[in-house]
């Protein structure tokens, strides 16, 4: 193992690897900042460029660009209220209210520090876990994966701004919308209304952009700037430093959220969006000031951002060890492995442990460099907040149109941005949880598939397997937690 660590370190210091990272990191940041272009889009666009590269250099190129899109996306989530990529949606909930209060520097400082440190925790977990990996991942069958996804759904009620029923309705609608198009189990197209577009169901990118970006752009088009006064455009380094200190002060929250990110990242098929929302909900449930969440709680920025970057380390674990991609982005990265002549799987760690270690180091460095780069550029980015809304609205709309079209090369996607935009506006006005809807949409197909497999393979008592039972207990606890909190408050004489 020691030889592999040294070998990996030497591979990582190769000039080709460092040059590949230097090119990929700014590209990844741009993909992150542009709404609609996500990490998977970055991977898809850059994949052809790695052909002929040295294996680690090629993988470093792809992995760096992919992993740090979320760092760039956090800035637009905080400053504009528009998630740069879907997993950044959880950051909007508290990051944007902080920006509206003129505390964007505080939120950015916390987000970038959380991203960098979360990424490093994810890599540390990757290096520690790699040797003991196979039994852990293989112990997760369909029942456990189904219940883990259901655990995410349980948190929908927590994610809702106050009204649990509204949160659950939004989550249910999200799951229902995810059931349009081909059913994974039978291949039968459902609810497609003889429209070719609906054969594949609703797409994630138009949904995310419509739900989160259109209502904000509509508000901008009425003439207001994002921040009410010009002092908000001055990035106060004191605020940034306060954000950094707040993150370091919340070290246990950071560590716990990062480990949630790693854990969710490890489980194949559970998307990165889940990690950020679960970390957010866990932070809210255990916070001393849960009422502050949604109105600008700094913990609501730290938790999702640390989980966001940490999950990439987790997602690499099954990708390298089993050849099973831990996330959608890793599916494309797997293509990169094959293009470079590598075959991830159980034998990969025996034969290429040095490459695996080198990749872990690439991931750690990319996260830290990206955070530093955004720190350096943040003072310019933040000036956007005082630009007149009537100037910003059409420009953002153009970026959204271009980004959405690029994701699928389908003009209908742009049309659906407006359809989901109307839905997002209504939900926002009536205070229904848009993040809950998104999480339901992401988890819907997963829930259906794993429920079906679990019932077929283990029967109706599938949840009595030991790990499944533990997750089921967590679900019950999660649902009962608000009641228990209320009881505790009354017994303790609280409100």
């Amino acid at each position, binding site marked *: 193992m020691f030889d592999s660590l040294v070998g990996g370190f030497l591979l990582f210091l190769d000039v080709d690897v460092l040059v590949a990272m230097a090119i990929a990191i700014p590209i990844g940041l741009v993909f992150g900042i542009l709404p609609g272009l996500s990490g998977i889009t970055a991977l898809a666009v850059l994949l052809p460029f790695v052909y002929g590269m040295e294996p680690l250099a090629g993988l470093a190129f792809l992995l760096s660009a992919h992993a740090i899109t979320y760092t760039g996306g956090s800035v637009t989530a905080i400053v504009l209220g528009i998630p740069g990529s879907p997993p950044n949606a959880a950051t909007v909930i508290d990051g944007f209210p902080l920006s509206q209060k003129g505390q964007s520097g505080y939120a950015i400082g916390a987000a970038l520090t959380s991203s960098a440190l979360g990424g490093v925790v994810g890599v540390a977990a990757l290096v520690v876990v790699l040797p003991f990996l196979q039994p852990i991942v293989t112990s997760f069958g369909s029942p456990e994966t189904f219940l883990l996804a259901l655990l995410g759904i349980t948190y929908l009620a927590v994610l809702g701004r106050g009204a*649990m029923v509204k949160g659950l309705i939004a989550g249910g*609608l999200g799951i229902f919308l995810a059931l349009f198009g081909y059913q994974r189990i039978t291949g039968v197209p459902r609810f497609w209304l003889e429209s070719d577009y609906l054969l594949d169901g609703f797409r994630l990118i138009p949904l995310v952009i419509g739900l989160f970006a259109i209502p904000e752009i509509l508000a901008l088009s009425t003439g207001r700037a994002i921040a009410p006064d010009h002092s908000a455009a001055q990035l106060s380094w004191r605020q940034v430093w306060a954000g950094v200190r707040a993150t370091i002060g919340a070290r246990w929250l950071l560590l716990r959220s990062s480990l949630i990110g790693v854990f969710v990242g490890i489980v194949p098929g559970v998307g990165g969006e889940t990690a950020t929302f679960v970390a957010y909900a866990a932070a809210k449930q255990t916070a001393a000031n849960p009422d502050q969440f949604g109105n600008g709680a700094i913990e609501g920025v730290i938790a999702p951002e640390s989980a966001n970057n940490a999950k990439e380390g987790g997602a690499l674990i099954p990708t390298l060890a089993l050849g099973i991609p831990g996330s959608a982005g890793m599916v494309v990265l797997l293509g990169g492995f094959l293009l470079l002549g590598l075959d991830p799987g159980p034998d990969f760690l025996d034969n290429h442990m040095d490459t695996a270690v080198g990749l872990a180091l690439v991931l750690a460095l990319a996260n830290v460099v990206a955070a530093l780069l955004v720190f350096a550029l943040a003072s310019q980015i933040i000036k956007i907040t005082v630009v007149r809304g009537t100037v910003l609205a059409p420009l953002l709309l153009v970026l959204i149109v271009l980004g959405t079209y690029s994701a699928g090369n389908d003009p209908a996607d742009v049309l659906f941005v407006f359809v989901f935009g109307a839905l997002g506006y209504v939900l926002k006005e009536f205070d229904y949880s848009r993040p809950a809807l998104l999480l339901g949409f992401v988890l819907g197909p997963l829930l259906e598939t794993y429920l079906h497999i679990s019932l077929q393979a283990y029967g109706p008592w599938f949840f009595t397997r030991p790990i499944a039972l533990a997750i089921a207990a967590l679900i019950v606890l999660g649902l009962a937690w608000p009641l228990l909190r209320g009881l505790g408050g009354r017994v303790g004489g609280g409100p």
Partner: protein
Amino acid sequence: MRTNELFVPVVLALFIGTFLGLGLFSFQYSLTVMRFPLIVGLVTCALCGLRIVQVVSAGRQGGPGPDDERREVSPPAVKPVAFGALWLLGVLPALYLLGYLAGLPLYVFLYLKLHGEGWLMAGGLALLCFAVAYGVFMNALGVPLPVHPIGWP
């Protein structure tokens, strides 16, 4: 009774109920295909029903619902929002009638000019949009943006 609070649960229940009905009676999907949508749809409809009951009973008692937000939400002014929405939707005819490369810059130019910006600002930002669409997306990223009109009525 706050009737506008009923809008979302009623519409969502109708939407989900319609598709469940279509799936069962019109498309006649098998139970394997409809099992999960039925579970999710019926639970969501039940939640919508619960929400309706909450709103109606809260209206009778003259107070907020049992787990309603305590914050007051002031309704947005309808006219500027409708005006803004129409302006945003204006990008669609521009894209469909002129294609992306011509439609987007023209849309930005008209939007800015008719919102009181100067010629320089409107023209400059329209050019910037063209440069981003053509230079970054089409050339650098290789995105096949529709250059020609997508469709005429």
